[in-house]
């Protein structure tokens, strides 16, 4: 037992879906538990934090971390696991890019509190209570953690060795990543453990894509009966396939819904939305410049389409990152 490499799996500001994805290895999970000593996995096992603290630095071979960093608890444990681990793998869209909750970076903490504790239609709050870090109203002192004003991908907090994107990552890539860690043949530090090409390049519908793709009218997904074999862009529907990294197994496309980019940008691209916008602008077709402008403006909520999973890692709002507790 003692000779086995150690594996830690931990969650921060995620939804638990990444932990479910590990369970989705099904029978293969038994291979993982055979190859590794699991030293931490809060969702399934009872190991404690002090066990990790008591370890030597770098004693853990691999730490798989999912979820974004939203508060000081997450930050503390991220630092601890970094210190105790040889390899840190950012697992899933939230750890890699902030994920959908990163869209909260478009709003202030105050705005969220105002709705949640005052304005929502079911609120009954005559005393105008608001959750407090320290409160004494019950006659006892009760405490709550305080939150950062922004969602952070893991690499804004600690040094990350590898990335495995997806919401959640698919079982085959999880298994490949863990196997490579066991065999010691991981690629260079900083690599994303998924194919480099764009989703479009591997998409079955690519063969139906016309040589020259041109959109003259933008359609929302509920407005059309989507052809299950035809390229979504050719049907006028926003699909982020051209800018999104492949490796997901195209499960959304196979369900007849367009890509929303949970695998993040293709290799070498820092800002997914900017990349997509330039790709999108090149296929928008209109006879005059004004019509072209109108057509692009007819796209509702570009931020929500193009930065669905990557708002927190985008170049947008970088200045706000300067103050975590803003």
């Amino acid at each position, binding site marked *: 037992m003692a000779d086995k490499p150690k594996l830690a799996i931990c*969650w921060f*500001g*995620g*939804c*638990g*879906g*990444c*932990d*479910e994805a590990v*369970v*989705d290895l*099904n029978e293969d999970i038994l291979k993982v*538990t055979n190859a590794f000593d699991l030293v931490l996995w*809060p*969702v399934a096992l*009872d190991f*404690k*934090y002090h066990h990790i*603290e008591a370890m030597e630095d770098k004693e853990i071979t691999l730490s798989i971390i999912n979820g974004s960093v*939203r*508060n*000081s608890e997450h930050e*503390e444990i991220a630092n*601890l696991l970094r210190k105790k681990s040889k390899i840190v793998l950012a697992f899933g869209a939230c750890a890699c890019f902030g994920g*959908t*909750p990163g869209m*909260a970076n*478009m709003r202030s903490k105050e705005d*969220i509190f105002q709705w*949640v*504790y005052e304005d*929502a*239609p*079911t*609120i*009954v*709050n005559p005393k105008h*209570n608001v*959750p407090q*870090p320290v*409160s004494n*109203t*019950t006659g*006892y*002192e*009760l*405490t*709550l*953690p305080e*939150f950062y004003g922004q969602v952070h991908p893991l690499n804004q907090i600690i040094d990350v060795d590898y990335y495995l994107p997806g*919401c*959640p990552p698919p079982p085959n890539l999880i298994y490949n990543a863990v196997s490579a860690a066991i065999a010691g043949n991981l690629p260079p530090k900083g690599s994303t453990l998924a194919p480099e090409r764009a989703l479009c390049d591997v998409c079955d519908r690519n063969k139906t894509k016309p040589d020259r793709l041109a959109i003259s009218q933008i359609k929302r*997904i*509920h407005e059309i009966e989507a052809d299950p074999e035809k390229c979504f862009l050719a049907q006028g529907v926003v699909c982020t396939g051209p800018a999104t990294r492949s490796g997901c197994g195209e499960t*959304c496309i196979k*369900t007849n*819904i367009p890509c*929303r980019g949970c695998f993040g940008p293709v290799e070498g691209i820092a800002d997914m939305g900017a990349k997509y916008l330039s790709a999108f602008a090149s296929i928008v077709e209109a006879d005059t410049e004004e019509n072209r402008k109108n057509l692009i403006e007819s796209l509702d*909520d570009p931020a*929500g389409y193009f930065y669905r999973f990557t708002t927190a890692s985008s170049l947008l709002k970088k200045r706000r990152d300067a103050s975590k507790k803003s």
Partner: protein
Amino acid sequence: MANKITINPVTRLEGHGKIDIFLNDNGDVADAYFQVTELRGFERFCIGRPAEEMPRIVPNICGVCPTPHNMASTKALDYIYGVAPTPTAKLVRKLQYNANFIEDHYIHFFFLAGPDFVVGPDANPAERNILGVINKVGLDIGKKVIEVRKKTREIIKLVASKPAHPEGGLPGGVPRGITEEERKTIRRTADLSVEFAQFAMKLFKDTVLKNKNYLDLVLSDAYNLKTYYMALVDDTKKVNFYEGKLRVIDPSGNETAFFHPNDYADYIGEWVEPWTYIRLTHLRKIGWKGLIEGEGTSLYRVGPLARYNVCEGMATPLAQKEYEQMVETLGKPSHHTLAYHWMRLIEALQAAEDLQNIADDPLLTGKNIRNMNFQFTGKGVGCVEACRGVLIHDYETDDNGMIKKVNLIVATQHNAAPISMSVKKAAQAFIKGGEVKEGMLNMAEMAFRAYDPCLGCATHTLPGKMPLVIDIRDHEGNIIKTISR
């Protein structure tokens, strides 16, 4: 606060949820609080998104029960666009929904709660987990658990892309239908699920009901809480996970409300306390009465035990038989918190039987999967029974169908105040004279674990399952002991 952080860094690793227990001068439990420590704000950052994208965003509220969020959202879209799903589309949705009930109920029973009963409440914590369960029941059974979970999740994958983040869901329909070939596979999975549900039922009966110590525990006052109950029921007041009307019964079992989910805001209020991020739901017409049980309370519970108490039977024959046996043993209403587990297994059986019915329905493979006869209203309330209880998504849009208001009420929120009280009662029963026995930790945990609480959902925020830290404090508020998991 600062003291606590320094003394107790463990809390900060594992403290997505937290319990503070206060002792009086005699060392008995004076009070206990179950706190939820996170907030993420889906209700705000969804504003400005196209409504039809919501079923693809809200599953990130919780990756453990993403299908109920996906479905509540899709049903809200039906109202916003004023369309009913086609019969085939509705069957496809229910396929996904029942498959979810099966896999989610089993992940709770076998991975999270089962270890307490199958391995034992005071067993070695290192063995009190799924691997311990497999050791006890045998590897073949362990593989069967994996197989049922895998195949039911394959159904979700087939119709909604990713089980941990279902996509799709359109107003009046579904993006993709079912082929004849797929129908056959689904039918085999349904049969397997019924067979497995009966096995799980027997395992529960053999392990818990036939063990006098466990049965005494189930029936003890430590795990009893008298509240109202709320659940969705169909026209004949049978359990319905997908649709129906909300029914409320009082602690004596009398119906006190029966209403369309659209009217939820008239019946449900959310109280704000400074000591927790979760909003505490209560019956609005009674008003907030605080954390009390019995006739004077305005608190209600949701989830399997509530469905047992509120409904007048199950919708499928095998599940109905099991339900009758439960009624015979516990009577109605039952306030025994640990009885949540029993009903959970009966529900997994109903879901499996329902899966068989859906697979046999010739309409399932129909081509008419979209109703696009939109009568736009701009408003929609989607209500389903999530595995953990009543889930409500309420949206309003502008004329262009862009979201301008979101209100979410989720299962663990309804249960948050009762969970706090359940933990207090268990703590009071097991902590006496300042002596904190090691096994007490798990006894208190069993009180909240029965609810299968999902704090990710609860605050539209963090992970589905919760590690726990318990601080025991003396009458001056000093921490005298910390127990953590």
